[in-house]
């Protein structure tokens, strides 16, 4: 879903562009306050419910219990975040780089694409989590199976999006390159590559969250450290406040990854990918 108003409604593009910018500006200040308020309301209601019905802490802790756990276990949480971040980051790099390389090979070889792109879409529907144990046996122990699971989770969405991106080039630009007798590689390096970037980033934004989940699930098949390990361990001894605190750390990791990719995107894509000149 990367539709911007400006793409859909090319007619009023200058106008819509401005309006969006104003909205973003308003979102910047008022939006932040409202979001904080919204979060506060949700937390307060949660706290009130837990206290009013005196829900036992091993079932659902109150937000304050979770806050206390976040504070008390801050060192433990930080220590366990490190391996998970490492696995997720490596998996992210591995999965996405490989996906983009495969997508490139598809561009260069239409037959390979016709043969294996549908298979890729098929494999995409297999729940990776279900085959995690098999991967572990094939890869042994250590960091590899976790990285591979994170990578696999990233691989297919990025592949599909990158292929879409390489295809989504203005056909007139391709005709222009043809009139200039440009080679396939030149068309790729000067046109398709850039045209695919917005699609690739859309996929990266999804996969950065997914690869954190991948690393966590990877840790479930056997680890001494990591967020996934901590989730299991906390669940085993019913330390629910720490369990929730750990989940919050996991979701912070996902948010941070998302923010990082968005930032890189804003650096790399300095043009308006919605516009067409």
């Amino acid at each position, binding site marked *: 879903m990367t539709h911007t108003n400006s793409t859909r409604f090319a007619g009023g593009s200058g106008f819509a562009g401005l309006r969006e910018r104003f909205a973003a500006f308003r979102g910047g200040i008022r939006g932040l306050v409202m979001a904080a308020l919204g979060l506060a309301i949700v937390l307060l209601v949660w706290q009130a419910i837990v206290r009013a019905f005196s829900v036992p802490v091993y079932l659902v802790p109150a937000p304050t219990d979770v806050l206390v756990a976040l504070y008390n276990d801050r060192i433990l949480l930080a220590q366990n975040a490190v391996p998970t971040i490492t696995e997720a980051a490596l998996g992210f790099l591995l999965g996405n780089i490989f996906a983009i390389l495969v997508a490139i090979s598809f561009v260069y070889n239409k037959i390979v694409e016709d043969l294996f792109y549908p298979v890729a879409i098929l494999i995409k529907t297999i729940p990776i989590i279900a085959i995690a144990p098999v991967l572990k046996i094939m890869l042994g122990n250590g960091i590899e199976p976790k990285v591979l699971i994170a990578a696999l989770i990233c691989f297919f969405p990025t592949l599909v999006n990158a292929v879409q991106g390489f295809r989504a080039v203005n056909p007139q630009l391709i*005709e222009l390159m043809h009139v200039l007798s440009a080679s396939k590689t*030149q068309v790729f390096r000067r046109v398709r590559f850039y045209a695919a970037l917005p699609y690739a980033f859309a996929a990266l934004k999804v996969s950065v969250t997914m690869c954190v989940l991948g690393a966590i699930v990877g840790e479930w098949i056997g680890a001494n450290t990591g967020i996934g390990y901590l989730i299991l361990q906390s669940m085993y001894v019913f330390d629910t406040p720490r369990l929730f605190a750990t989940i919050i750390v996991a979701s912070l990791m996902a948010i941070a990854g998302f923010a990082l990719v968005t930032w890189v995107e804003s650096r790399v894509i300095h043009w308006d990918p919605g516009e067409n000149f």
Partner: protein
Amino acid sequence: MPVAIDLSQVSVTFGTGDRSIEAISEVTLTVQEGEFVSLIGHSGCGKSTLLRVIADIIPPTTGHVEVLGVAPTDARRQRAVSMVFQQSVLMPWETVLANVRMPLEVGPQVRRSPDAMSPHDALRLVELDGFENAYPSQLSGGMRQRVSIARALVTRPRILLMDEPFGALDELVRDTLNVEILRIWKETGMTIVFVTHSLQEAVFLSQRVAVMSRRPSRIARTIHVDLPQDRQISVKDSSALGRHVSRLRAVLDEG
């Protein structure tokens, strides 16, 4: 004068069987070197297809095509033909200069051929010097179209194909660019084939206007424009031009 483009009995059919569409049918057209010919006709009558055949983007289904005395593919390889589209088709991720320099960097003769123009000169020709480092998004529609013209000129093509290049611009900007393309045509001595929907524009610019009929699409009539060679923008509102436009309108309504 030598012949720049020679089309004889050219037909193009898309698809096969029941679903096939004959986009153009037995078109015969000769364009002299240095001529400015416009192509008009209703939407979908095959104007773009005709340009694509000349530019060697589509092979003709039947018929014979010669560009500068050789096959279109050879003409294309020699960089003798450039093309300008309705959308300026710039690469939004490159600066104006990089966009204009691009034709010199791709294709078989990547080494700069001696008769290529410098990108700076090309930008000067379209009066965009000073905008080298701007990005397309920072330019107005008219300026973007100028950049795409500069990009077409940088290889010093002997034939320039323009497919409704000013169709997306507003009329005031369009008028300015009309005058400008005439100036460039005179300065370079190129052959220009120009597709447009605007009768006024076609008459104002061309020495000859070819009118295409509705399907089966062929050249219905060719009209010579006997306006003075030196055309100011005020010529657009002149009654002489008005008379030509009336004649074209009549031909179009027929076919």
